[in-house]
């Protein structure tokens, strides 16, 4: 018998997401046969940015997301730098990588322990109050001493993610929402004391990633092996790349690339189109590359079900995220599934944290961090980077030295997208179809698959 479940709010994510699934018995197994992802909030950052001083975009766009503001600062700075015709000096580039790296690690640790893990651990009897009660309790969840140990790590991870932010603030002034990443480099300068303080925190965080985070994720994988074959989704992976290793951004720790229908390819931002047939925007807002994008809300649009547009690369659905990055770089190609996303995220944390230690050696005390360039009268720019949860891009058009157009496409814009004009479902929607749901009153399988993408809905819709 067919059943429809709406999980609204879908919690332990950032922002406002509702997921509706239709469940039927197929071959004797009760499973998801259709799924809809709805972003249920719209802020309007793109119209808000119009007519402002272009330099302000680094501060405005950070307020799109309180979990990955640094990534928006970086995307915005890169986009402005292309429009202004300037690149940061080496110190500025490295400082930005260090702040970004700190925010990446805090986000990954937060995601695994504080957002995703509660889907797998029965904390009943350990954590007996809000926000851990009420909760779903299913028979496959981890309990007993292993659950107690993971709860202890949950608590420990609260401190580790805080320390990752303390580390980033050494060069970022404060986190979340740093104030030092600007068009042309950074405002904060290098000192021997700052390098030492940063390295001390980084050493502690690396030990946690190596000794606790990665073993815990691997243990989870061995306890829930079925999740290596659940939640695959579209199978196409897209990465814009991040952590520039030269000042022009030609080489990166995590390179740009994509994996489409089994073949590797390069990335051309001109191939990105946002569709709105099923989104609450006017027809004029749809079927456009973001360089000429328009965002006009249409409340109550017939047939629409999300505030997210549906971005597609060369008309094809793509997934963004740590798995996409690690896959196109050849660092992790075990498979595409809910559990592979968790594993790739943990392994990427190590790759980034280890690289950060080396970047500290590239900093030079009293060398410049910033290259000044005045606002152009008329220019365009695009900035491609990666937020912790995937590919992020900003587009700017400057006219009369003011912002004429600003468009943002975030990782969860891709992942949580609704259907497009070609009737193709978004990556999370596709990942849910085929998932078994043992107990429709407690659709834990839905949560596990959605959480594996680490959705961020404030970013998605902005």
């Amino acid at each position, binding site marked *: 018998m067919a059943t429809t479940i709406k999980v609204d*709010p879908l919690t332990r994510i950032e922002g406002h997401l509702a997921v509706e699934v239709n469940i039927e018995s197929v071959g004797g197994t009760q499973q998801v046969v259709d799924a809809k992802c709805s972003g249920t909030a719209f802020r309007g950052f793109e119209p808000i940015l119009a007519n402002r001083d272009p330099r302000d975009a680094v501060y405005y766009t950070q307020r799109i997301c309180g979990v990955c503001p640094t990534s928006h600062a970086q995307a915005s700075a890169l986009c402005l730098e292309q429009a202004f015709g300037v690149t940061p000096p080496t110190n500025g580039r490295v400082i930005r990588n260090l702040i970004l790296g700190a925010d990446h690690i805090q986000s990954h640790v937060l995601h695994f322990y504080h957002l995703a893990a509660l889907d797998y651990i029965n904390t009943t009897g350990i954590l007996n109050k809000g926000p851990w009660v009420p909760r779903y309790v299913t028979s496959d969840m981890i309990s007993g001493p292993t659950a107690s140990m993971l709860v202890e790590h949950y608590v420990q991870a*609260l401190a580790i993610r805080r320390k990752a932010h303390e580390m980033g*603030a050494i060069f970022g002034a404060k986190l979340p929402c740093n104030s030092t990443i600007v068009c042309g480099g950074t405002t904060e300068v290098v000192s021997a004391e700052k390098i030492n303080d940063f390295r001390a925190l980084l050493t502690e965080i690396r030990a946690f990633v190596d000794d606790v985070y990665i073993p815990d994720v691997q243990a989870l994988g061995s306890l829930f092996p079925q999740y290596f074959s659940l939640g695959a989704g579209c199978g196409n992976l897209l990465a814009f790349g991040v952590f520039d290793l030269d000042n022009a951004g030609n080489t990166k720790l995590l390179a740009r690339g994509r994996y489409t229908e089994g073949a590797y390819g390069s990335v051309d931002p001109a191939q990105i189109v946002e569709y709105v047939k099923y989104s609450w925007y006017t027809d004029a807002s749809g079927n456009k590359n973001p360089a000429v994008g328009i965002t006009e809300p249409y409340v109550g649009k017939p047939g629409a079900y999300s505030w997210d547009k549906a971005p597609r690369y060369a008309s094809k659905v793509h997934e963004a995220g740590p798995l996409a990055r690690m896959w196109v770089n050849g660092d992790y190609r075990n498979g595409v599934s809910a559990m592979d996303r968790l594993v790739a995220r943990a392994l990427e944390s190590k790759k980034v944290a280890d690289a950060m230690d080396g970047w500290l050696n590239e900093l030079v005390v009293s060398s410049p961090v910033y290259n000044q360039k005045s606002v152009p009268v008329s220019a365009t720019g695009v900035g491609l980077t990666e937020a912790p949860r995937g590919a992020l891009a900003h587009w700017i058009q400057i006219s009369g030295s003011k912002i004429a157009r600003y468009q943002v496409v975030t990782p969860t814009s891709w992942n949580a997208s609704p259907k497009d004009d070609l009737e193709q479902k978004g990556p999370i929607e596709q990942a849910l179809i085929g998932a078994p749901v043992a107990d429709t009153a407690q659709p834990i399988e839905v949560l596990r698959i959605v959480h594996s993408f680490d959705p961020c809905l404030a970013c998605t819709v902005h």
Partner: protein
Amino acid sequence: MNITRRDFLRASAAIVAARGLKESGVFALQQALAGQTAVPVIWLQGLGCNGDSVSLLNTIYYASADELLLNTIDLEYHPTVMAAAGDLAVSAAEDTEVAGGYVLVIEGAIPTGADGAYCTIWEGMTMQNALTTFAPNASFILAVGTCAAYGGMSAGAPNPTMCKGVTGVLGNLAKIINIPGCPAHPDWIVGTISYLLENGQAPPLDANRRPLMYFGNRIHDWCYDRRRFCGTNYKATQLSQPGCLQNLGCKGPQTYADCYMRKFNSGEKGRFGGNWCIGARSPCQGCVQPNYPDGMSPFFAG
């Protein structure tokens, strides 16, 4: 299988011994298990970015995040951290509302355009309706972050969704306390909550309903960099240079907060943080002020 408290404590001790962990987390868990009473909190998110919730997790000066969550507050509803989802999560908020006597925290602005359709927090519940539904039975209402307090970035011109802050929707109720900041400093949030718990009443507030203990002084009057160069007329002319940032767009002269002293991302309990915007040579954006961002931008000058 449920384990008893004794089993848990034994297991925890074994984990600590085996892994060489610090005991603080386990100690906090033991206290929570001892059944201390904690104040119920309902935390609702409107149009914002979650930055205030992430900032709160950075708390350490008054209490660490685990102490806060395990011992100090009973966080009955918070969409980012709560275990429950969907209808089960909604029931947690509704049950707490019926019981009353909770602290209602609002993060993010409240869109009032299109009858609130720009933000629904669960099926059939707009943020606008949620605020008016959950406000009456709350002991106190904390508007955390500049969006919740005054509209903030979400209400930036042309304010596409007609966002308002909490007082913009409810009026100047005595039980509303604004804790602005983009995001709010965790000490401002936790310190205000602990004041409420100790005193049973709101701390002294300024005309913008902000606690004077955190928002009483003008940044420019206490700014380390201005004082250091006072009399020398040493003003920076380009970002990343030392000196007073007044010619580069700094809003310290119009902004009231204790960032100059408290700083951000404190590393130890009872200690202030290590860095802040002006200390890192970036101009103050005036993010705690009611006219942020429109009245405070352009952020850069020169």
